């Protein structure tokens, strides 16, 4: 997990996303315990209230649940929940900004598709794009 203190995103949201990433990657499996809030705050030197806030975001979404006296566990079905949420925001978070940048650079949608399919860089087609 990485926390970027220079990011514009609040630390607690970054933490929630980092935990989600680990669940998606299978590092934190469903119905298993994750590291404690204390361990997170000490390791990343973040205020325990901030760390708690990040974890609580995931508790509210049903991704994590608290077992009294034991700690924080990954809910069953958590991975599916995160996948759905992330898929729903994929367009706004990734595609939209991709299209905006492409428009600035006069890269056509067709060229973007070519890049995605072919995985290579495109030739200079600035003449074509500026028409």
């Amino acid at each position, binding site marked *: 997990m990485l926390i970027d*203190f*220079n*990011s*514009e995103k*609040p*630390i*607690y949201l970054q933490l929630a996303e980092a935990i989600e990433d680990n669940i998606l990657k299978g590092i934190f499996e469903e119905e298993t315990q994750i590291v404690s*809030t*204390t361990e997170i*705050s*000490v*390791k*990343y*030197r*973040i*205020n*325990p*209230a*901030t760390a708690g806030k990040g974890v609580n975001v995931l508790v509210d979404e049903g991704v994590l649940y608290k077992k009294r006296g034991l700690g924080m566990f990954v809910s069953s079905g958590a991975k599916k929940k995160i996948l759905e949420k992330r898929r729903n925001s994929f367009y706004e978070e990734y595609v939209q900004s991709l299209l905006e940048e492409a428009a600035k650079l006069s890269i056509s949608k067709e060229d973007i598709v070519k890049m995605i399919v072919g995985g290579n860089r495109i030739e200079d087609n600035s003449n074509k794009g500026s028409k």
Partner: protein
Amino acid sequence: MKTIQIKGVSKVYGHTKALDKVDIDIESNRIYGLLGRNGAGKTTLLNLMTNRIFPTEGEVIIDGERVYENDKVLGNIFYMAEKNLYPEDERVRNIYKWTKEFYPSFDMVYAEDLSEKFGLDLKKKVKSLSTGYASIFKAIAALASNTDIVLFDEPVLGLDANHRDMFYKELIANYSERPKTMIISTHLIEEVSSVIEEAIIIKEGKLILKQSVEELLSGAYVVSGETSRVDKYIQGKKCIGIEVLGSFKSATVFEAVNNKDKVLAEELQVEFAKAELQKVFIDLTN
């Protein structure tokens, strides 16, 4: 649960007003950063909270009781002062033993454990400690005191980067183990910005802001670009700091960004960046 109320406190030294009618409510079990430039009144405030000096007017109340000559209340506050107030010729271990006499909650085993981690030699005399180790020695006493309120005045003075990192981690571990009210007065703002929950900023003896760091930072940002465009952008906005570099200008805006601002920024081709606590602090106290 110990809450600290600073009520209309002023402190005058001769012709200088070190503190001017300061009102602050400090909630229990939070970590606060006390930030201010040199001479802003940080140490005066900490000294007043611990009854080392007396206010010219106003009062400090802890858990409903005045701190003035109140041993019961004062026995529950540990103050790590920036100046060394310990006998120079005494050995570190003996001072820890005495601390236990004054603060029965002091945890000697934990203090020894921390001393080993930081490489502090308990047999050394106070006068032979380097600046860094003098800070470590006092910080350990504060962490091990186990009082409900712990005040730190420049706790990492003279510490190298590794030891500073260790100190903050130990402080968080200590707080997590047993939540308490901690106030850290420091110049190294960026370092504590993730550690503290709330920032208390004082300037020339006056409280200018007390807010959660997260709220403070989400309510401020830096905008930069070509000077005339930035000027156009910041018109009518609460701007707290400006830097100019040739035809390039960057301004710290003390407001949250809304959608209209984003559209305007796009139009004017100016860019947004995160405002760091240190930057906001400098702009607010300049």
